[in-house]
């Protein structure tokens, strides 16, 4: 994969850097890592992180430190669709364990694994701020709430249809 932002993405990086005082471009590392993850295959390879470091004039180690601290950065390749199911108390009392079991069974993978076709990854996560609409999961930039087995079936089918 070619690790290089488009001209448009580079403009965005500069726009973000301009939000901070002169010389504080390091503050852009979290938003720019999000951009890198989106642009370079859904995860952060060492090459992607080094690229971000060069853009922000940071040492690579400073970028690795950040990337390993925050849970939204994937340090391994992930499937095209990542089901991040919340398992914290409020979701648990509304049946998130059953939803996680159902997805495992449906996709034939364990938590943290990716399907052989590279389409789906299942992850469990902690409270996402949707406790009143539980059980729920994050799928890309959006939330899927009030999950039932039927809803899960629909979501999987919709992802498969979109991938084809």
């Amino acid at each position, binding site marked *: 994969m070619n690790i290089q932002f488009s001209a448009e993405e580079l403009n965005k990086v500069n726009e973000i850097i301009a939000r901070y005082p002169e010389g504080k471009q390091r*503050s852009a590392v979290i938003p720019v890592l999000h951009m890198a993850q989106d642009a370079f295959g859904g995860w952060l390879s060492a090459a992607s992180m080094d690229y971000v470091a060069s853009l922000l004039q940071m040492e690579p180690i400073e970028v690795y430190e950040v990337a390993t*601290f925050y849970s939204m950065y994937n340090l391994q390749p992930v499937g095209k669709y990542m089901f991040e199911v919340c398992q914290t*108390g409020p979701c648990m*009392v509304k049946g998130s364990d059953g939803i996680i079991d159902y997805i495992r069974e449906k996709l034939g993978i364990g938590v943290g694994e990716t399907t052989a076709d590279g389409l789906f990854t299942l992850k469990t996560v902690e409270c996402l701020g949707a*406790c009143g*609409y539980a059980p729920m999961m994050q799928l890309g930039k959006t939330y899927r709430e009030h999950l039932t087995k039927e809803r899960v079936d629909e979501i999987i089918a919709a992802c498969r249809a979109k991938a084809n």
Partner: protein
Amino acid sequence: MAKKLLLANAHVPGIRGYEVYRREGGYRSVEKALKTMTPEAIVEEVKKSGLRGRGGAGFPAGLKWSFIAKPEGVPRHLVCNADESEPGTFKDRYLMEFLPHLLVEGLIVSSFALGSNTTYIYIRGEYAWIVDILETAITEAKANGWLGKNILGSGFDCEIYVQRGAGAYICGEETALIESLEGKRGNPRIKPPFPAVKGLWGRPTVVNNVETLAAVVPIINDGGESYAQIGIGKSTGTKLLSACGNINKPGVYEIDMTISVEEFIYSDEYCGGIANGKRLKACIPGGSSVPILPANLLLKTAKGEPRLMNYESLADGGFATGSMMGSGGFEVLDEDQCIVRHTLSLARFYHHESCGQCSPCREGTGWMKKILHNIEYGKGKMSDIDLLWDIQRKIEGNTICPLGDAAAWPVAAAIRHFRDEFEWHVLNPEESQQRNFGLAHYADPSAMHVPVS
């Protein structure tokens, strides 16, 4: 119907957009503040209002503002804490999603009061779509002259930027948030110095919660005194609560802090009672960090008075028989819920979210998770319960930031009020895998012998 100061217009069609928001009286507080008030006068109004920080600690907002240092020639910053990651809490999300302009309006007035020309909203990374909503609102506000240079000819310049986090509960702690905004790991700083003196990039900084800053709008519009008249005692104004768990109507509610907990749970205006005709077992009234209360101590204080939904009443009895308002994340558990399992889920959460700087927190949260796991899965010993008690006490008060306490309190309260449920798990390892303890012994939990340190 309680008076609504924040969510009154939440259901007006199109209120997310500038035109409708303005038509409904939006941005009046900016006009009033920038054209007729000094920054000091705004701080005074906020002081008079009695507004307490809505992020969890309940510290008076006006007082906090008055602490900001003003060294000559050094820029100051306001940072809005939209990290909202405390389990059970989803009120800020609601406010930002449906009334983004209310937050932007509050931010402009507050920035003026504090002298912040560059203000940041730090939002949890998972709320990605809300970033778009907020940025649209900011663009609209700027296009209509409410942001940018020399706003309303007042000479005041202000820009607001949205900064997205990337998944870390600890970044809700204000000094961790500042570190994160500086492009680092979210490791809390040792205080002092406090952010009001040395915060973002070493500059004086105020960090406030989303709801706190939105509440500045009605305070400036109607005056601090009129705000202070709503509520009781030091619980002035209205409070957003996010209700979840085994109730009929989960959601975000704005209350004035005079109603009882019982009314909040059972009235149709709010939670609408326990779902599926079940009975109430317990409740965590203010986000996962605050002590869990068994049903009867929730509805009535130990003195037998009705418990009210406000700062003082929820805390009545201290940690022995009370809890806290916290972040307003109200989680209700019915008779089918297992306290051990629920406590394990919270312990796992805190272990996952510990930044790892202090050993009592880093190691203690891991131990608590492991021991609770053993008890839950039928491998616990009686001595484990005392060990858990011991560990939580050793964490509390011995760490850099309050996450350690936040991890200790749920475990302490669960043992304090539900010790017999833990013992039942240990004594009945097989049965406890098949069924829940239920309500059985909780007819009068306040009368039970409980260890209180």
